[in-house]
C-alpha cells in the first residue's frame, strides 16, 4: 500500500514539491502500477544474471590528447542566471 506520506517522502527524494492533493492522486497511480508490477514475483530468477546493457560493452579508452572543448562562453550562454562567467544559484551555505 502506497500512502500519501510515502509519496511525499519520495517526492522529496526526487526534489519535486507536491501538495496534498497531488500526493493523494499520485499515491493511487503508483499503487496501481506497483500492483501490476507484482507479477514479476511469479518468476523464478534464481541463478539468472541481471542484464543492465544489451551490448557487450567495454570501457572506452583514448589517448590523453588535448582537444578543443565547448568553452566557458558557450557554456554560460545558456545559463538561467550568471555572474562573472559562473552559473549563479541561490546561496548554498548559510
Amino acid at each position, binding site marked *: 500500500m502506497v500512502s500519501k506520506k*510515502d*509519496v511525499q517522502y*519520495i*517526492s*522529496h*527524494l*526526487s*526534489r*519535486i*514539491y*507536491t501538495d496534498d492533493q*497531488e500526493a493523494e492522486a*499520485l499515491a493511487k*497511480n*503508483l499503487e*496501481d*502500477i*506497483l500492483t*501490476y*508490477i507484482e*507479477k*514479476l*514475483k511469479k*518468476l523464478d*530468477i534464481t541463478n*539468472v*544474471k*541481471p*542484464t*543492465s*546493457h*544489451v*551490448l557487450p*560493452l567495454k570501457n*572506452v579508452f*583514448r589517448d590523453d590528447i588535448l582537444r578543443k572543448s*565547448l568553452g566557458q562562453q*558557450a*557554456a554560460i*550562454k*545558456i*545559463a*538561467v*542566471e550568471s555572474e562573472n562567467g559562473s*552559473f549563479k*544559484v*541561490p*546561496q*548554498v551555505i548559510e
Partner: protein
Amino acid sequence: MKLNELTAHKIISLIKEKKETAESVFLAVKQAIDAFDKRINAYAHISEKPIKSESSTKEFPVPIAIKDNICIKDYPTTCSSHILEGFRPPYNATVVDKLLESGARITGHANMDEFAFGSSTETSFFGPTRNPWNLECVPGGSSGGSAASVAAHEAIWALGSDTGGSIRQPASFCGIVGLKPTYGRVSRYGLIAFASSLDQIGPLTKDVEDSALLLNLIAGHDEMDSTSANLPVPDYTKALTGDIKNLKIGIPKEYFVEGIDPEVKEKIITAIEVLKKKGAQFKEISLPHTEYAVATYYILATAEASSNLARFDGAQYGLRCYPKDKRRTPIIDMYEETRNQGFGQEAKRRIMLGTYSLSSGYYDAYYLRAQKVRTLIKNDFDEAFKEFDAILTPTSPTTAFKLGEKASDPLSMYLSDIYTISANLAGIPALSLPCGFSNDGLPIGLQIMTKPFDEEMIFRIAHTYEQNTDWHKKKVTL
C-alpha cells in the same frame, strides 16, 4: 501529386535530374505546415527558413522534421517540456550533424510526449498532436509529432526516438514506416536521455526505401557516444531485393492473445499470406516471457529516467522557479519548485516510480529483479533467432484511440506498448509498416523484428511486402 506528398527517394531523383529544386520542395512542405499545422500540431517549433549547412554535399536536400529531444545548435530544443523552455543547445546531436552534412533541410522540432513519456503525444507542454487520419484520435507516441508530420506531408521524412515503441507505435497509428534500429547502431550523442539502456534514434518515413536511405545517413560509430557500436555500416538500399524465398519467419503465439483487436489480427493474417506467396515460410513460436515485458520495462525505464532527469533542476539552464517568488531561499527549495512547475503529471509519476524502485529497501525487489527478467526476455529472442530469420507481430493491439480516452489511466496507456517494448529490452531492431486499415479508416501496422544488426533482413522482408501491396500509397486528405 503535390511535391510534399512525394517520397524522399523520388524527390532526390527529381532534384538530380534538375526537374525540381531543393527550394521548391521546401516551399511545398512549408506551405503544408502553414495550412495544416494549426489543426495537427505536429510541430513544437517551426523554422521559417530551412536549417541547413552551406558546406554540405547537398546530395540529399530533403526537408526533415526532428523530434524535440534531439539537439539542434542554437535552436529551441525542449523535449516538449516547460522545464526546458528557452533552452538552445550549444551543439548539434551527431545525427543532426550527419544530416546537415548530407544536405538535409530541417523544418523544425516535432512535437512529442514530454521527455518521451507517453504513447499518445497528449502530455506535451505544447498541447496534443492529432492523428491526420482522424483528428479526434491520437497519433500515438511519444514520436507522435514526427509521425504526424510525415503522414500529413508537413515533412518528407522525420527522426524520432524509441525507448519502448515510440517510433513504431506512432508509425502504426499514422500509416507510415517507422524503424527502431539495433541499440548502438545510431549515435545517441545529443539525444536528451530518457532511459539510456533502451533509447534509440530512428527514421519515420513514407515507405521502406526512404527508411533504408535515411538509416544510411544516420547509422555508424561515433566516438562521442561510448555505447555506439563500432561496426561497419552496409548500404541498406542494397537489401531491397524482393527476394524472401525460404526465409524462416516466426509468429509468436503470445502476441495473439486477449486484448488484440480482431481487425488488427485479421490484417496480420492477411499480410502473412502475402509473404507466404513470395516464398517465406512461417511457423508458430513461443516467446514465453512476453507477458512480463511491460512490468520489466516500467521498472527499468523509470529508474533510468529518474536518474537522467535529475539534471533538470533550474541551476544551469531552462526554467528556474522560486517558491512564492521568494528569491532568497535555500537552493533545495528552488530545485523542488522548479521541478514542480516544470514537469507535467506523467513526468512526475515516472520520476517518482523510478526513485521508489531504486530507493533503499526496494532495490532488490524491483530494480534488480527487473534486470534479471530482462535477461529472460532477451534469452527468448536469442533462442528464437537460432532457428528463425525474423519474427512477425502486430505493432499495436489496437488502432489509434481517441484523445483523452486513456489519459487518466496510466496503466492502460502503458499496455498500448505491449508488442513493442520487448525489442527495446532485448536491444534488437524492429520496424513497423502499414498493412491495412480498420473499418473506420484508421491505419494498422505490421512489426518485423530480427537479430541485432540485421536491419538488412528487416528491409528485405518489409520491402517485399510493400511492393506487393498498396497500403503505403494511401494518402491522408486534409
